[in-house]
């Protein structure tokens, strides 16, 4: 819903039912990717069995606050500053990335009761996979990897 709303505001300056349905449907793959990542990142559950998979899922999605806030701000910002440099947008992504990494470490440490080293490795892997997915879509949609790696 958030992605659909932000995309509609940035691109059309308003949100109509047809715009919302269309942007929701077209960007729903992002939610599917999030679910797939969540399925991996919420495992293994702590051995003592006091945490259900559903609760772990819920806590994991609480870690999406940084990207939620970023997306929430991006829609109106792009509407108000339509010529915003893409470099500025890329740099602005560093904040949610760092914040998410920090939350991911905390999630692994506190919720999944992993060691600090394992928690750090999981966060690094999560960021790497996320970055690869984003860059892959950008490369495909921009015409090829040469647009990114020069």
């Amino acid at each position, binding site marked *: 819903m958030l992605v659909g709303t932000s995309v509609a505001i*940035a691109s059309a300056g308003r949100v109509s039912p047809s715009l919302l349905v*269309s942007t929701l449907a077209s960007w729903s793959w992002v939610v599917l990717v999030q679910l797939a990542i969540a399925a991996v990142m919420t495992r293994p559950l702590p051995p003592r069995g006091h945490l259900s998979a559903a609760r772990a899922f819920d806590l994991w999605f609480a870690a999406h606050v940084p990207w939620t806030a970023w997306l929430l701000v991006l829609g109106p910002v792009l509407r108000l500053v339509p010529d915003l440099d893409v470099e500025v947008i890329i740099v602005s992504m560093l904040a949610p990335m760092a914040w998410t990494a920090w939350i991911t470490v905390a999630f692994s440490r506190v919720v999944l009761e992993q060691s600090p080293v394992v928690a750090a490795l999981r966060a690094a892997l999560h960021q790497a996979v996320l970055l690869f997915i984003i860059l892959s879509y950008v490369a495909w949609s921009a015409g090829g990897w040469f647009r990114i790696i020069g």
Partner: protein
Amino acid sequence: MSQSRLWLFLFIAGVAVGALPAPSPRARPAQAGEYVVLSGDFHVHAFPGDGALTPARLVDLAAEEGLDVITITNHNQVLASHILPRDSDPIVLLGAEVTNPDFHLIAVGVTDGVNWRQPAAGAIADIHAQGGVAIAAHPERQFWGGWDEAAIGAVDGVEVAHPMLRESTQAAAEFDGFFARVLAGNPGVARIGSSDYHVTHAPGQCRTFLFARERTRDGVLDAIRAGRTVAQRADGTLVGDPALVALVRTHHRTIPRPVSLLPTISAALTWLGIAGLMMSSRT
């Protein structure tokens, strides 16, 4: 009313306001002698690709912007073109932006992808073989290397109006330099104005006026091939043969878009609603 219901109400109200019809500058295409003056944007990106909106929503937006024809031109793929609505108004032509490290080339009126791993002249030949026209896209200096004499002699149009020109005088000089070079080797080349719409601004912010014999796909392609075009920059400047520019000024009724607060109200209400819902779900 609980807080989350209030946010939901704002969200729904914003979507409802967004459904109200937007004032449109659209007018019936004007007749100029044997030609009908059409307004087109031949460089628009869609989802799936690096455009934000689906082809169907782009058609709605193009109609609101008073365009008669658009081309969906994603980079090196025609997937979005194949999910666009048939028999739409504005006319939608299938297309692609052939994206090579040394040149970007708009293919208008093609049904299949064009191999981008070849010289520009080869890509233009492929586009012509499919019955389409080829337009040099945003010809900044970094893309001049891909244009040899064969490509310059074969290209049908050059973008001389593009949002990039609003941002940089350097880009304007480079566009002018490239166009002068093409004009010397290909005097009939069409001047094209394109929005290169991805997410922000709107389709048609730069556009092409076409003197077409008929308001059809073939009529549009024929006008580009014959160079019967005038490009319009984002500031409204018209670029083209002075006689055609005069005809556009005389015949094309550019109706200023009425100011409406409805889109802003829709965006503000919806944004407040979704922001409130997100925050209340986390507390």
